[in-house]
Structure formats: structure tokens, C-alpha cells
């Protein structure tokens, strides 16, 4: 089954010594899953020599060297630069021996209630998501300063979890480049910094003139948010100026879904999923990435993971079919996946409808089926067998009402309507999926609105435009020419919390308040109403929230109206309670306090059964019948798909955490390359330099600095230029473009990072996709930073493990003895361990006996490991979606710095918990699956890092933690060298205090030394100067304000220090003290959570005391799916991983030869054809590969015999 088998008994009696190449292949393999090879990049698949560098070294060559080999910055250059820097540093004084004075400033007369200095307080608020909906949060504040965002445990939407966007949104508050004062663009003098008083003076005369004509010529372009206070602000504006234009707008809006569902239901609704163990059996996603970056992602991830989680072998599990363009987070979860271009996905949807609707026995369905029967379009490229088996699965009686068909942004409105109709016909509505009313402002079409507005502006019908919370100059559809129209408006006022392109060219640019600084309210997708309360007064006095600005503008005409955000919200809520819109009590104060405390209003969450029903089949039939399915794309007529990445529509581009979070499929950071399938890229001649998919000469340029080729994408007249990158498993002849990058005026983090694809988006597109694009190679190359090869673990066979549900059901309850051990009885193995090395090779045994541990699971009696809490973690790969929330949460909790694109390319990224991504299969174009595996320090009981540290900076604690003592570390990096998991991160520079993407002092000197090599980002000679040649003291320091975000409970590490996951030791210690003070004798299970566990929306991470038999972590660790990563090395990790279970459809597998082989392998799922597995210990039998039989009785009695077995056994195995 696998050529990676190290077990000699499978060599079928032949005494064959493996060749060098074979040994090498064995050494590098990430293992097999379901009989398929596992690989994480084309380099690994082709075994490129450059990949070995990543594999064999703890940090690749580039990371530990100062110079860059290929551009040849010489030592001489370095000395010149150094000389210059010493000259610059001359003026600085040596920090004296004198002790620096620290001041303590106590509170004065006004002592804030409840604050105990040194103890954090947590307040509930909610995060209005930029893409709609909201998340209920709990904010950790230290002496009034927000430092960390967490999910609100009692909020019905979040239930204690939250997403990458919510976690990273705190960076918007402490963005050093936030506008601080109003800026007036004086027609004569240019931009001048003004005061709020100046603005008031200007505005009071300016807005006065609209009183007579009812606001004719006045327009408001506002963010597409909905809340009671915002609605009140809108109504007030409309009352005061009936003729004013009110345009809610969102940059990259999911318009086709809204339009399609409005078609189906006759009213604007939003689709909400009710995934769960009891409600979900089959999910069909038509290019819908419902687990990432969409308003309901927390709810979806939680419910979906619940429907997948198998604890017992009789647990049911849902099945996911994904038909998508390129791997997204959802595609990685698929049990069956079909890669199709967007036009083919449409054809698939129609085909599916044609197949299932007539079979449902539903009159409406039959009518609809008849109507769409005429819809033409070829079904080229669609796997008919896949479609039919998928449809049959949906039609099974036990799956009726327990399935979901969902459609993504790349599909036109009619497909969304069709899916809603299918959901209705299958009986899903009200069970697995429901539809809630969209608030009025969210229901408006952004594209229509901005097109109309731009036309009005262009025609001079708008004289004053107020832009609040949006950035249309950057993200408006290209065809509306917003920039040009904007210039024609006499007065423009732009309010934004962070820098925007729009503010840069407005008459007035006003500093906006961040949501952590303002009052407001928001509604989650499930209807839950949550207040937004400020954690801190605006950092820059005078900053206003959107509703405050709208109120202030009204005030200029009507001086008595209120402008304070708190009063505005209170008024709106009072009115809401009075009118019955909010289910409040008669005692408003009590109700309001309760809502603020809880972070939501009880009773506002809409139950699935209370959603909208009544799909208008006739309307859907009409819409679907008019569907025009375009022909399959070809190399000269590409399909385009527009997607959002980690930075959303561009509004979060200035958040460095999100820029440095690897994208799910490509693992690229700080960029948005055009994605093509390897086949298409090859056909178009735009593969990365040096790319080859043939073994063994496969190379992929220098994996540290992979060079992508530039290309031009053209849709009609519109053109965008960018680098091309390949993504395995993408539909051929299709390109994926990620929006939001290429900001021009968004701040130092995002300006010039990536390229802007908005010029290709037009307001007449039926969906976020286009057909008929051409892609041509352009001059130049471009460096891409991808982490896909970073931290590659060297292993014999199975790092990431997955089995099919049938195997889990059959073998999940079996416990068998493992491979022979010379010194002890074979260990009893459950399914997870049987899939790995321990099933047939004895675990490595060390001569040194650790006095604390007896066996992998047991502690030596009376040893420290047998007492007190012993911390352990479990990461369940079954439910992990790879969304990255753990990484960001850890970054936030542990003050982990961002390093920038070039440093990341060198393998110097600092994130403590990484998510490894693997593909399976042998075809780079068509990998069978994508697997995710989060890896952080596993806190080995026999930690290899500890034994090599010359200064005892990393030592073991009595509770099983592998401590990292920063002040002891002298930076030898031996520990990282010896860590098989590659989880140690080294501060090559002062990342914690210096800028990662900004300017540095002495830039002119560097440029003088290396002329024509300027530019750190953006140019075609991208990154030629190695900015790390610049001594760190010349790099600009991070602004003071960014220190406010730091967690005061965790050290900020300095240069030359190693760091790694600490199991959130600060939380452990805090919990320990708290429980002692409350006179508890132990820390109860669940008393605290690690930061990653706390964030994980799908509850994949469990943390706790493994000595506590009732703790959840004990149950998970002892679970049959649990296995120890590289456990055969005898490192005894405290973090265990859990095998992923997939639920393929046997009927669908049986259609192909590969699938049939997979079904057959269910009978013998274990490595090496099932030996050492359920049949008992094959190693004890004669005739396997061993020349003689090991006598276990003799072994137990005769020590000498036992020891001689090594020699005898070794001789026979050779």
C-alpha cells in the first residue's frame, strides 16, 4: 500500500536493503491518508532538493543568515551600512548605569468604580461585522484599556467563541495612523489640520441652506449596518430632509444572494443555517464558503462541527459535498469535492434541481422542475455520477429535512433562488436552514445605490455628500467612475476610524470612533440584538461614531437635537421598547442594565421554526427558466471568481495580524496573487519560475523567495496586472482574485501590499464572478511569501491522520497490542495510534528513565507528574476548519509580533500556533482532499529541547509545562534545532518593538549604498534590498500607542530570545491564585481556557488537567481517535491530536477505480496491509519477515536474552 513502510515484516521475506533514495523518501513523507500520499506543496510532492532545506533545518538557510545569497549583498555593503549606522548612533548616549525612574500615578478624586489596578475587567459589547451581522464579545480591559477580544460566553451567537476578524479588530483602535483631527481640504491652501470647532462653524453655515429645499442635493453614503439606533438616525435624517439621498453601501457585497432570496420569498431575507447533530445529515455547498468570512461564520462553524463530531462509533455524522472553484476553508472539510468553474457550478445547480425536484412528489417542485427543464447549457465538465449520487443522498428519506443546499457569492441570483426552492421542497426550511428578515438598510442593493448616486453626482445633482464608515473611492464598482464623480461634488465629508482613500480626497476628513469607543447596537444573523458599548473614551478627543455624526449634522439645522451617542442609543431603545420592537420590560432601566451586562437582549434570537417560509415557486421558476448558462471556460476565455481573504473587502487591510495570517489554500501572506490551477498556469506559461510537476527534477525556484510571474488579466476593456500563483485542486481555466489588497491610502501596513482587483468588478455583474477573461504573461517577476513549506516535520509515516467513517465504525472500539517492545509489554493501542508507527514498530526507548513518567499515559507513582494539575491539550482535526482564529487569539494574548513579508518568506514568522495544510493524492491538479492540522508546542514530557539548552532556559515544570524563561535565553537556538515539531520561534530582531512594514531611519544611506535597489515592497525589483541588513536600531520603532494593546501579563520578548507556546501559563497561574484565594483545593475543569481554545469557533481545542478523571481533556486524550504526534519518538507530548474522520458516500466512491480501492481498504485500513492490527500481534509470528520467533516468556525472565534481541533481531531484519 505504501512504499514508506519501515516495517521489515512487510518486505515479504526478502532481505532487501532499502536504497538511498528510498530511505530519503521514507524520511520526508508526511504520511498517507486513506492510502493516498500526503504533501503540503509542489516541492514536497516532487521532492525538490530545496524542500529538504526546510525539512532538515530548524530554520531554513535564509532565516539564520544575514546575507541574501542570490542578490549578493556583500559583506562590504554591510560594513558600509554599519559604518553609517554607527555614525548615526554616535549622538545617542549610552544608557547609563543609573536605575531608570518609574512613576506610579494613582487615580485622583474620581476613582472609577470596580477597577482594581492589576486585575482585568471584562465588559460585554458586540462587533458589527463589516459584512453584516454582529458578534457578541467580551473585552478584557486593564485599567480601562482594552487589550484582548474574546467571545461572549452567554451570547447566543458566539457562545464564547469568535472569529479572526473580531479578534483582530482591536488593531483598528490602536492603529497609530488613525486620523486624529479633522482635516479640511482648503481649495486654496490645500489640506490643513482643523479642529472640531472649525468643522462646526463651517457645517452650521453649510447645512443651513438645505432647510428650505428639504435636503435636495444632500446625500448620505453610509455603511450597510442595521441597528435600532442607526435606523433611528436614518429616520430622523429623512424626516428633516425628505429629499436627501440615503445610500447604504458595502464594498464587496453579497448581492446575488440577497436578490435571489428576495426573488424566492418576495421579501428581503437572509439565509441562516441551523447545523447540528440532529438537524444536519447532508450539506451541498455550491461554491459557498460558509465556514469563513461570512456574517454567520461562528454559528456555522459551531453547528457544522457538532454535526461532524463523532465521539462514539455509533454517532451519526453529516456528509459534505462541495462543488467549488478553489479550495476554501469549507472545501477542506468536504467528504466529496468537485472542482468546477463558476459557470459549471451554475450548470451543476440546475442539473441537481432537474434531478431531485421531480422525484420529491411535491407539486410545486414538479412545476419548477418542468420550468427549468428547458434551461439549456451544456453540462461539459460536470461529473454526472457525482451529481446523481449527491442528489440521491439528498433524496434519501432519512435525510429529508436534514440537508442543506447552499450557494456562494459566485453564483447569480437565480441559483440562490433555486437553492431556496430545493431547500423548501426537501423540507429543510425551518429545520436545517431558516430565513430571517433582512433589516431595511441591509436589504438595499449596494451596487444599484452607488450607481444611481454616482450618476447623480456626475450630473451635479448632489452638492454635499456625507460618507460615513465606507470607502467607495477604493471599492466602488469600476464602471460607476466614483472617483471622477466624487470630484464633482462641491462639499464632501468623510468620517472613518482609519485611513481611507476616500478621506484623502474629501473636503472634510473627520476622525471616526472605533466600535470599542462608541455607543450603538447591532443585530446578529440570527436576529439577536446586542448593544455596542464603549470600553474607553475616544483616544482622540472629538472622534464621532456614525450615528453621532448623523445627529451632529442634523443639529446644525435643528440645534436642540441630541448628539451624544449614549443618549441617541438610549432614546432609540426606549422608543423601541415602547413600540414593542424590542421585547423589553416595563422597567426600562433594569432592562437596559441587564442588556448591557449580558451583551444581548434575551428573546430576540429567532428560532429556526420562526423563520420565513413560503417560497414562491412560480417566481423561482420564472427566474430559473431565464438562466443563461455560459459555456465552459477555456484557456483563452477564463472564468473569474472574486473572493475575500483575511482582510475582508479591504477595510481591515491595515491590521498586520490579518495580513500575516496565511490564506487557507495557498498559505501566502501579505499578498493576493491571481490563483490558477497548475494545469492552466502551465498552459498559459505563467507557472512560478522553475516550476515543474515531474519527478524527480521538480523544482519550484528557491522556496524561500519563490518567484511568481506577472500577468495581465483582462475582462473586456478592464485590465489588472498581478503575479500568478498556483493552487492545487482549482478548477481549470478559472482564476481566483482576492479583493481588498493594493490599498493606496490605507496606512503603512497595507499601502502597496498586493494589487487592487476592484478595477475588474463592475456594477452590472450578476455575481462575484465573470466569464470571458483573458490572461497573458506580462513582463517582470514578483516575490511571493508562502508558509506552506515552513516548519515541515520530518517523519516516517503519519503526521496528519484521517480515516473514513466505515473504518471508525468498525475499529473505533478495538484496542489491540502495539508493536513489540523489548523492555515492556506492548502498549495497548486504540485506533488513532494504530494508524501510525506504534502499530508495528516499538516505541523508541531511552536509556535514561525519566523519574516522572512510567508510560506514555501514566505517571510514575508519587512522582511530580502524579500530583496536582497536569496540563494537557487535545486538538481535534475532525472539526478544525483551519480558519486561523487560534493563531490570531494566541497572537493577541501572548504579544506575538508581526514580522512582515520578507521575514516571513525566510521562515521567521513568530506565530506560536500554526495551522499546517496538507493535500492528499498523487495529482497536483486534483488532490483528493485538503487537511488542516494546528500545531503548537506539544509540551513533551521527554522534551528534546530541554536537554540541549546550555543555560537551562527551557526546563520542565512540575505540572508538565515546558517552560521558556526568556531572561535566561542566550539564543543558541539549539532547542529549535532539536525540536521535531518545529514549534520554536526565534526573535532574529527586535520584532516586538520595531516596525515590520514601515520606514526605517537612514533609508537614504542604504539607497546610496545600493543604488537602483530601492523599495521594500511593490516594485518589480521587489525586496531586493534585504532590510534586515539594516541594524534594528535604525528601524523605526513602533508607535507608543501600539503598546497599549499589549497584554500586561506577558513579557514582550526582545532580540535574540527563543519563544514558543506556553500553554497560556499566565492564565494557569492566575487561575491557580484565584482558586487558592477562594479556598478551592484544585482548579475546576473549565475554570479557564487557553487563548486558542477560547477562540476556536468549532470547539476543536480542549485544554485541562489530565489527572482529573472527569475532565474533558482526559476523555479526549483517552479517546480512540486521539494520537500523539510523532509519539514514536518517545517525546510523550502533552498535546494529542485527534484523527479526522471523513464520511464519503460509498455509492459515489464505487464509481471510480480509486474510489473502489478506497472502499476495499476499509477492510484493512492499517498501515502495511493490516498487520500489527486487529488480527493480533503479527510480529510474534514466524514467517512474517523475522527469521525466528521471539519468546516472550523467556524475554521476561532472561534479561540477557532480551538485550540480545536487539542484535539478533537487527541481524535478521537487515
Amino acid at each position: 500500500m505504501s512504499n514508506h513502510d519501515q516495517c521489515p515484516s512487510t518486505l515479504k521475506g526478502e532481505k532487501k536493503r532499502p536504497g538511498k533514495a528510498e530511505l530519503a523518501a521514507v524520511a520526508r513523507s508526511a504520511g498517507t491518508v486513506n492510502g493516498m500520499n500526503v504533501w503540503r506543496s509542489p516541492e514536497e510532492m516532487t521532492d525538490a532538493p530545496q524542500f529538504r532545506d526546510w525539512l532538515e533545518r530548524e530554520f531554513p538557510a535564509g532565516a539564520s543568515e544575514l546575507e541574501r545569497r542570490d542578490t549578493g549583498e556583500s559583506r562590504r555593503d554591510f560594513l558600509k551600512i554599519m559604518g553609517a549606522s554607527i555614525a548615526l548612533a554616535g549622538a545617542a548616549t549610552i544608557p547609563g548605569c543609573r536605575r531608570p525612574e518609574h512613576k506610579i500615578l494613582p487615580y485622583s478624586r474620581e476613582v472609577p468604580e470596580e477597577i482594581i489596578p492589576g486585575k482585568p475587567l471584562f465588559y460585554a459589547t458586540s462587533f458589527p461585522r463589516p459584512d453584516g451581522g454582529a458578534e457578541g464579545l467580551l473585552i478584557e480591559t486593564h485599567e480601562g484599556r482594552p487589550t484582548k477580544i474574546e467571545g461572549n460566553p452567554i451570547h447566543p451567537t458566539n457562545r464564547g467563541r469568535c472569529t479572526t476578524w473580531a479578534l483582530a479588530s482591536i488593531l483598528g483602535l490602536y492603529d497609530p495612523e488613525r486620523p486624529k483631527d479633522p482635516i479640511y481640504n482648503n481649495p486654496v491652501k490645500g489640506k490643513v489640520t482643523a479642529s472640531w470647532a472649525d468643522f462646526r462653524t463651517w457645517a452650521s453655515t453649510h447645512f443651513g441652506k438645505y432647510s428650505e429645499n428639504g435636503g435636495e442635493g444632500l446625500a448620505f453614503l453610509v455603511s450597510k449596518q442595521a441597528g435600532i439606533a442607526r435606523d433611528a438616525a436614518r429616520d430622523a435624517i429623512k424626516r428633516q430632509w425628505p429629499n436627501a439621498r440615503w445610500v447604504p453601501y458595502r464594498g464587496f457585497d453579497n448581492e446575488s444572494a440577497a436578490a435571489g432570496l428576495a426573488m424566492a420569498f418576495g421579501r428581503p431575507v437572509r439565509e441562516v443555517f441551523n447545523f447540528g447533530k440532529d438537524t444536519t445529515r447532508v450539506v451541498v455547498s455550491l461554491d459557498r464558503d460558509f465556514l469563513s468570512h461570512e456574517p454567520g461564520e461562528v454559528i456555522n462553524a459551531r453547528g457544522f462541527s457538532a454535526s461532524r463530531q463523532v465521539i462514539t462509533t455509533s454517532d451519526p455524522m453529516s456528509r459534505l459535498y462541495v462543488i467549488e472553484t478553489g479550495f476554501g476553508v469549507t472545501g477542506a472539510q468536504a467528504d466529496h469535492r468537485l472542482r468546477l468553474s463558476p459557470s459549471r457550478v451554475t450548470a451543476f445547480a440546475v442539473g441537481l434541481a432537474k434531478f431531485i425536484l421531480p422525484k420529491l412528489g411535491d407539486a410545486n417542485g414538479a412545476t419548477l422542475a418542468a420550468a427549468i427543464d428547458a434551461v439549456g447549457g451544456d453540462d461539459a465538465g460536470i461529473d454526472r455520477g457525482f451529481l446523481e449520487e449527491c442528489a440521491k443522498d439528498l433524496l434519501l428519506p432519512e435525510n429529508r429535512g436534514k440537508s442543506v443546499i447552499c450557494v456562494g457569492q459566485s453564483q447569480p441570483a437565480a441559483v440562490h433562488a433555486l437553492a431556496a426552492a430545493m431547500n423548501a421542497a426537501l423540507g429543510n426550511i425551518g429545520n436545517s436552514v431558516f430565513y430571517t428578515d433582512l433589516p431595511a438598510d441591509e436589504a438595499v442593493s449596494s451596487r444599484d445605490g452607488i450607481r444611481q448616486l454616482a450618476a447623480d453626482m456626475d450630473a451635479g445633482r448632489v452638492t454635499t455628500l456625507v460618507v460615513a464608515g465606507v470607502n467607495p473611492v477604493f471599492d466602488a464598482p469600476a464602471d460607476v467612475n466614483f472617483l471622477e464623480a466624487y470630484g464633482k461634488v462641491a462639499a464632501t465629508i468623510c468620517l472613518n476610524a482609519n485611513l481611507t482613500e476616500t478621506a484623502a480626497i474629501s473636503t472634510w476628513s473627520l476622525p471616526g470612533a472605533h466600535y470599542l469607543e462608541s455607543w450603538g447596537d447591532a443585530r446578529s444573523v440570527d436576529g439577536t440584538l446586542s448593544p455596542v458599548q464603549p470600553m474607553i473614551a475616544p483616544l482622540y478627543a472629538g472622534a464621532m461614531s456614525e450615528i453621532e455624526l448623523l445627529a451632529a449634522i442634523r443639529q446644525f439645522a435643528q440645534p436642540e437635537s441630541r448628539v451624544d451617542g449614549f443618549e441617541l442609543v438610549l432614546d432609540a431603545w426606549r422608543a423601541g421598547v415602547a413600540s414593542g420592537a424590542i421585547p423589553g420590560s416595563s422597567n426600562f432601566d433594569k432592562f437596559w442594565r441587564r442588556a448591557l451586562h449580558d451583551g444581548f437582549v434575551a428573546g430576540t434570537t429567532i428560532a429556526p421554526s420562526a423563520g420565513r417560509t413560503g417560497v414562491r415557486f412560480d417566481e423561482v421558476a420564472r427566474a430559473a427558466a431565464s438562466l443563461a448558462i455560459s459555456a465552459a471556460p477555456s484557456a483563452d476565455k477564463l472564468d473569474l471568481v472574486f473572493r475575500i481573504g483575511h482582510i475582508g473587502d479591504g477595510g481591515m487591510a491595515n491590521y498586520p495580524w490579518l495580513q500575516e495570517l496565511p490564506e487557507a489554500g495557498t498559505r501566502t501572506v501579505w499578498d493576493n496573487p491571481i490563483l490558477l490551477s497548475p494545469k492552466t498556469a502551465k498552459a498559459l506559461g505563467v507557472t512560478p519560475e522553475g516550476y515543474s510537476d515531474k519527478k524527480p527534477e521538480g523544482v519550484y525556484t528557491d522556496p524561500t523567495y519563490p518567484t511568481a510571474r506577472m500577468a495581465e488579466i483582462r475582462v473586456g476593456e478592464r485590465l489588472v496586472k498581478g503575479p500568478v500563483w498556483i493552487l492545487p485542486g482549482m478548477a481549470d481555466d478559472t482564476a481566483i482574485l482576492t479583493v481588498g489588497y493594493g490599498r493606496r491610502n490605507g496606512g503603512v501596513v497595507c499601502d502597496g501590499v498586493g494589487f487592487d482587483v476592484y478595477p475588474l468588478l463592475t456594477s452590472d455583474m450578476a455575481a462575484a464572478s465573470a466569464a470571458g477573461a483573458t490572461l497573458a504573461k506580462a513582463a517582470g517577476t514578483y516575490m511571493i511569501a508562502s508558509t506552506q513549506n515552513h516548519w515541515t516535520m520530518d517523519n516516517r509515516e503519519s503526521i496528519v491522520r484521517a480515516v473514513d467513517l466505515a473504518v471508525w465504525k468498525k475499529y473505533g472500539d478495538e484496542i489491540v497490542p502495539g508493536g513489540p517492545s523489548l523492555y515492556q509489554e506492548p502498549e495497548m493501542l486504540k485506533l488513532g495510534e494504530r494508524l501510525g508507527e506504534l502499530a508495528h514498530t516499538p516505541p523508541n526507548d531511552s536509556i535514561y528513565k525519566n523519574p516522572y513518567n512510567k508510560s506514555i499515559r501514566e505517571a510514575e507513582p508519587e512522582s511530580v507528574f502524579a500530583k496536582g494539575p497536569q496540563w494537557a491539550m487535545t486538538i481535534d482535526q475532525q472539526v478544525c476548519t483551519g480558519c486561523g482564529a487560534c493563531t490570531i487569539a494566541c497572537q493577541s494574548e501572548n504579544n506575538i509580533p508581526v514580522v512582515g513579508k520578507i521575514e516571513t518568506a525566510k521562515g521567521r514568522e513568530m506565530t506560536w500556533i500554526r495551522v499546517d495544510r496538507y493535500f492528499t493524492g498523487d495529482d497536483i491538479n486534483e488532490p483528493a482532499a485538503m487537511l488542516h492540522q494546528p500545531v503548537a508546542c506539544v509540551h513533551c514530557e521527554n522534551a528534546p529541547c530541554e536537554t540541549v539548552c546550555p543555560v537551562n532556559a527551557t526546563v520542565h515544570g512540575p505540572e508538565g509545562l515546558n517552560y521558556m524563561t526568556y531572561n535566561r535565553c542566550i539564543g543558541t537556538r539549539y532547542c529549535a534545532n532539536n525540536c521535531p515539531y518545529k514549534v520554536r520561534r526565534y526573535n532574529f530582531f527586535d520584532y516586538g518593538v520595531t516596525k515590520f512594514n514601515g520606514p526605517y531611519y537612514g533609508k537614504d544611506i542604504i539607497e546610496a549604498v545600493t543604488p537602483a535597489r530601492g523599495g521594500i515592497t511593490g516594485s518589480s525589483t521587489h525586496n531586493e534590498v534585504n532590510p534586515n541588513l539594516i541594524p534594528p536600531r535604525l528601524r523605526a520603532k513602533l508607535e507608543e500607542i501600539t503598546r497599549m494593546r499589549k497584554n500586561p501579563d506577558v513579557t514582550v520578548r526582545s532580540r535574540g530570545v527563543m519563544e514558543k507556546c506556553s500553554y497560556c501559563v499566565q492564565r494557569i497561574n492566575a487561575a491557580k491564585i484565584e482558586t487558592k484565594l477562594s479556598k478551592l483545593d484544585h482548579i475546576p475543569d473549565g475554570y479557564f481556557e487557553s487563548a486558542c481554545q477560547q477562540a476556536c469557533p468549532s470547539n476543536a481545542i480542549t485544554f485541562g488537567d489530565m489527572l482529573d478523571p472527569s475532565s474533558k481533556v482526559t476523555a479526549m486524550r483517552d479517546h480512540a481517535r486521539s494520537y500523539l504526534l510523532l509519539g514514536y519518538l518517545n517525546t510523550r507530548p502533552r498535546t494529542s491530536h485527534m484523527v479526522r474522520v471523513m464520511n464519503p458516500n460509498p455509492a459515489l466512491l464505487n464509481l471510480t477505480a480509486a474510489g473502489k480501492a478506497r472502499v476495499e481498504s476499509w477492510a484493512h485500513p492499517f498501515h502495511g496491509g493490516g498487520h500489527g492490527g486487529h488480527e493480533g500481534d503479527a510480529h510474534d509470528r514466524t514467517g512474517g519477515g523475522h527469521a525466528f520467533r521471539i519468546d516472550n516468556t523467556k524475554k521476561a525472565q532472561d534479561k540477557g536474552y532480551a538485550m540480545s534481541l536487539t542484535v539478533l533481531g537487527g541481524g535478521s531484519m537487515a
Partner: protein
Amino acid sequence: MSAIFPKWTNILPTVVAIAVVGGLSSVVAGFWYWATPEFWEVGYMPKQPGGGFNHQIHAGKLGMDCRYCHTNVEKSPEANIPVVASCYGCHADQRLAVLNNSQTHRAKTNFIREAYATDASIEWTRVHKLPDYVRNFPHHAHVNAGVSCYSCHGRIDTMPVVYQAQSLSMGWCLECHRAPEDVLVPQDKVTQLQWVQDHLEERSKRSSPELMQGQMLVDALTGAPPQNCGACHY
């Protein structure tokens, strides 16, 4: 044959040897003495606003409990410098008529009333400071376990201006963590510095019944004080 080296050079090896040994020992001894926190840190007495809060008067003569001002020391990792309102509670114009009528005293404490009137803070200079890589010395954990203020801060109640009484070095921390029975006192006595000093001195004679009491206090703890790195460094 004349000697190449004059005769006095015969003693040169001895002199060199003594110089080398003596030099090295003095370097070691000098380092031992001068380059340690005992030398650099102990006695650190920075200038404070208003000449400094006189602990000798307040805590010593007037007998105010430490926790009257350091209110959250039992609840928070930080001992908390009192808010200005606490000072003003006594030093308000209408209070303490006798003292406030004294012109010198009025002048000396005027900064309190000024700060209170303008809701401004008072910039005290920090005396006891652990390095940043030692996280948040948890006062609440120590005080509740029965570590007296005296153990780390010395006889604060005799200090007109506060100075650092102990080295606060890691070795010094570990002294107590290794032998808590030498320093633990009943929890209700932690702020009675005179009593604690006498008691611990008695205990240090090692044979006294007080040592037994120390041991009992240690046994009553839910866990021995940690001596592992991760207890303080993270």
C-alpha cells in the same frame, strides 16, 4: 659570565603569581560585592513628591494599618498606591484642624489638596520594581498565604522616606520559596511589622517553638511555594 637577568628578578615569578591571584580574587570579590543587587538596589531611595509619604509617622506613630491605604493588596497582584482621595480623606482643609493649622504642615501637604482639587494624579516614584520579565509579583497570593509586608519591604513603619530594604534578586526570592517555614506568619499578623520582626528573629534561632508554628503554617497551605521558572517568568 654575567647574569642576563639581575638578581632581583628572582622574586618576579612570586610577585607575578601573587599579583595574578590577588588580582583575580579582588575582581571576583569586587564583582561579588559591587555587581549584585544587594549593593545596587538596597537602599534605593528616590525623591518623592512632597518629600515623600512619611511611613514612620503614618504607619509607625499613628499606627495606621498598611491596608488602610494599600487597599487591594489582598485582592490584586498589585499592592496599589492609594488614590489621592484617600490622602485627602484626612488632609482635607476641614479635617485634622490641629495639623492643618500648622503652616509648615500645610505647606508640606499642599500638593495633595491641589491634586485633589484639579483631579490630577500625584507622580510617585516607584521604589520596588521587579524586571519586566518577572510577571506581576502577586501581592494577593503572598499576603493571603501569610507572607508579611516586612519580609520584602522591611520596617516600612520606621522609614520617613521609603527605601528599598531587600535586594529583590531571584536568589533572595528563592530563599523564602525554599524555606517558607522561616517567614510565614499568621495571616492576621502580616501587617504588624514590629511583631513580625520580633517573631521571625526569635524563629531564626531555630530551636524556638515559633519554628514549629512556621511549619504548621506551611502545612496549612494548599501547595508549597513554587520554585519552578514558570511560576514567575512568562
